[in-house]
């Protein structure tokens, strides 16, 4: 049960009556009796909350930064009207609005209640409980009860870097020699031959075709297709560190490295799929957290975002041995292994570096890491002794980062180290460069 403001108001009015009454003791007990009676009547005549039936729309998926409309169908099979408040409770991170709905369901009818969620972070969210407060006819007291109604919202990574996709695809087409600008009119005879333009490699001129025609004609090579790309996302402790500014909420405490890595991985996967390469995905810290095998090309991205959505940074040291073993088990043919992790000197020294030769001997390894703009800002601090000491610490970290990058490159590993906003674009460029160079 629950009381309303009217019950308190009734008591205050009763107190004034007691103050004025000639027989205060009698008046007091009378007032108390009236309140108890009103509460009893309301409780007895309020609609039954326990009998209510609820139905919810199916599980929803929403991209981070967008809103989800959750519909709840309330059916009242009881004999009395249910009038009052309803709260559809969701975890606070989903910011449900409005907090409570006014509800009025006549007997035997159904009503629809819509709650809007604006999630603050990625992941799976389960509805907590539906609580209904059914007021009595006097509005003094109400019956209250909660129901467990299923319902889940999966908040997907926002894939903010998709705005880079058209530009990268244009570059991809240029590499493949399919750029529409360079194709002559529709009646082109030869698919794989085209007119020479300034800048083409003279070695690619097809002299036989040139001899047949007035123009100089070059032979274009399509880059190799059906290569395999394995994207490995490190979900260990280093992925929990927050970098930059949270693009979804503008929170200056930043976005985890894991989320920046996902953003870059999604752009890379989209690009690879268009380039005709096969993409596999693996999230690993001390065990496989998620994996996607690039089956059908069309549903690669939906599969990826679904697999990424529930990932959280695990506060454990990543197991590099296990990761390499998992990669080797999945990639039998030579492929491009893209590892999204942090260039942390100590973590790499003890983790990945000793086992990297096993990987780089059989595969092409590309290591991508997000750099912290805060470190650059700290390194420029000159205002006082405290700032200069912090600048020295920042410089020390940047030196270590450069050293570990150099060591990785000596192992034959490609390294992409970019600021949070540029990582996706830089990683895509690195992939395109490898593709253009035919190193895949």
């Amino acid at each position, binding site marked *: 049960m*629950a*009381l309303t403001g009217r*019950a*308190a108001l*009734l*008591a*205050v009015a*009763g*107190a004034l009556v*007691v*103050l*004025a009454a000639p027989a*205060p003791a009698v008046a007091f007990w009378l*007032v*108390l009796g009236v309140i108890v009676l009103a509460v009893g009547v309301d409780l007895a005549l309020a609609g039954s*909350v*326990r009998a209510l*039936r609820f*139905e919810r729309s199916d599980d929803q998926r929403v991209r981070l930064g967008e809103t989800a409309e959750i519909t709840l169908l309330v059916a009242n099979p009881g004999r009395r009207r249910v009038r009052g*408040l309803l*709260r559809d*409770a*969701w*975890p*606070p*991170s989903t910011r449900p609005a409005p907090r409570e709905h006014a509800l009025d369901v006549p007997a035997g009818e159904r009503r629809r209640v819509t709650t809007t969620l604006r999630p603050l*972070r990625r992941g799976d969210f389960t509805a907590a*409980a539906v*609580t209904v407060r059914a007021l009595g006819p006097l509005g003094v007291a109400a019956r*209250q009860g909660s*129901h*467990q109604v299923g319902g889940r919202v999966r908040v997907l990574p926002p894939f903010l870097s998709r705005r880079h996709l058209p530009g990268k695809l244009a570059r991809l087409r240029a590499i493949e020699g399919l750029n529409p600008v360079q194709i002559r009119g529709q009646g082109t005879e030869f698919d794989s031959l085209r007119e020479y333009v300034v800048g083409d490699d003279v070695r690619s001129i097809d002299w036989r075709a040139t001899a047949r025609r007035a123009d100089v004609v070059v032979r274009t090579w399509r880059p190799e297709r059906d290569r395999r790309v394995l994207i490995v996302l490190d979900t260990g402790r280093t992925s*929990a*560190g*927050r*970098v930059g500014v949270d693009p979804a909420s503008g929170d200056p405490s*930043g976005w*985890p*490295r894991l989320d920046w890595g996902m953003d870059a991985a999604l752009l890379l996967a989209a690009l690879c799929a268009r380039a005709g390469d096969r993409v596999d995905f693996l999230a690993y810290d001390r065990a496989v957290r998620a994996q996607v095998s690039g089956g059908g090309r069309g549903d690669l991205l939906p599969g990826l975002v679904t697999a990424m959505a529930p990932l959280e*940074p695990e506060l454990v040291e990543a197991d590099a041995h296990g990761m390499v073993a998992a990669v080797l088990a999945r990639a039998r043919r030579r492929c491009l292994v893209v590892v999204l992790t942090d260039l942390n000197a100590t973590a790499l020294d003890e983790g990945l570096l000793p086992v990297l030769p096993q990987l780089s001997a059989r595969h092409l390894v590309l290591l991508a890491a997000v750099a*912290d703009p*805060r*470190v650059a800002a*700290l*390194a420029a601090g*000159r205002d006082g*002794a*405290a700032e*200069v*000491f*912090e*600048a*020295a*610490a*920042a*410089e*020390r970290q*940047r*030196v270590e980062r*450069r050293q570990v990058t150099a060591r990785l490159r000596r192992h034959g590993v490609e390294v992409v180290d970019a600021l949070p906003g540029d990582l996706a674009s830089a990683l895509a460029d690195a992939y395109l460069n490898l593709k253009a160079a035919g190193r895949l």
Partner: protein
Amino acid sequence: MTSVTPTITERWRSWRGVLGALAAIVLAATAIVLFSGTRNGGRLDVEATTPQGARALAELLRAQGVEVNQVTTFDDAIEQAEGSLLVVARPEFLVDAARLAELAGRPGPRLLIAPTEPVLRALAPGVTARPGSTETVREPGCGLKAAVLAGNALVGGSSFTDATCYGGTVGVVGDATLVGSGSFLTNGRLPENGNAALAMNLAGAHQRVTWFAPRAPLGTPEGGQKSIAELIPANVGWFVWALVVAVLLTALWRGRRLGPVVEERLPVVVRAAETVEGRGRLYRARAARDRAALALREAALARTTPRLGLTATAGENEIVTAVAARTGQDGGRVREILYGGVPAGDAALVALARDLDTIERQVRDS
């Protein structure tokens, strides 16, 4: 989809254990209080077994065949005073002058323990009290038989005119026996020195003792002034109770949540730059200027040498010469900045950082 609010039956089932335990605790506490030996009570109460009570004296008197009746109201005292020794144990509670006069009208012996001014005026007229000697063990020092037989006793408090024993604190004036303080009658002090003997001699002189020990003030002081509590109309009291009910209902109204608190497992929030900031503070705390300067110099060199067209293997002299040539600064000073010693203080470190910035900028811009 199921209701998660328990029914009345389920609620009773889950709470009955707690309610049962509470009831058992209350019952046990009541039983212990009812059947235990100790009796609480006020000072000099013949029922009280506390150190301040007078149960021991009463029992001793009863063993000697003396009938001891405790009364707590004027009516009982006036009714029973006749033919017995009236012991006024709590004179501070006797404030009603009219009733005191009525009591004084009944003839008979009295034992006044630490009497107040109104009590003295009514029951021992003509005697005045002088306040304030400390309670100590004193010698009788007089001819009163009861005192001489008892010997040393713990007395003190007020002393009275016409009282001769124990330095004026105990004396007999007419029907009234005056005692400056009642400590020697209490359970706690009775066994010491001659306290018990003095108490028995004073209180046991008669076959009946009416022990007048009220537990609360009786009547109002003279002048008939009413206390504040009596001046407030009865309505206000009930009004306050009604307000209490209103506050309670308001608390219940505001305190009831619409549904339970929703829990959520939140991710950790740790800024990646925290390790760098922490290391910076550590440098500062340990005044590690050598390491800080080394880090700053290394970083500046790593950025400057490629701009000078030098490789990473270039030696100190080569770099200093190249920098001096590019920037136009003095070679010795450039060497001091790039390869000098540890800065002497924090100010020197800041200056070094700025000098390195200057060299870097000059190399970049030239």
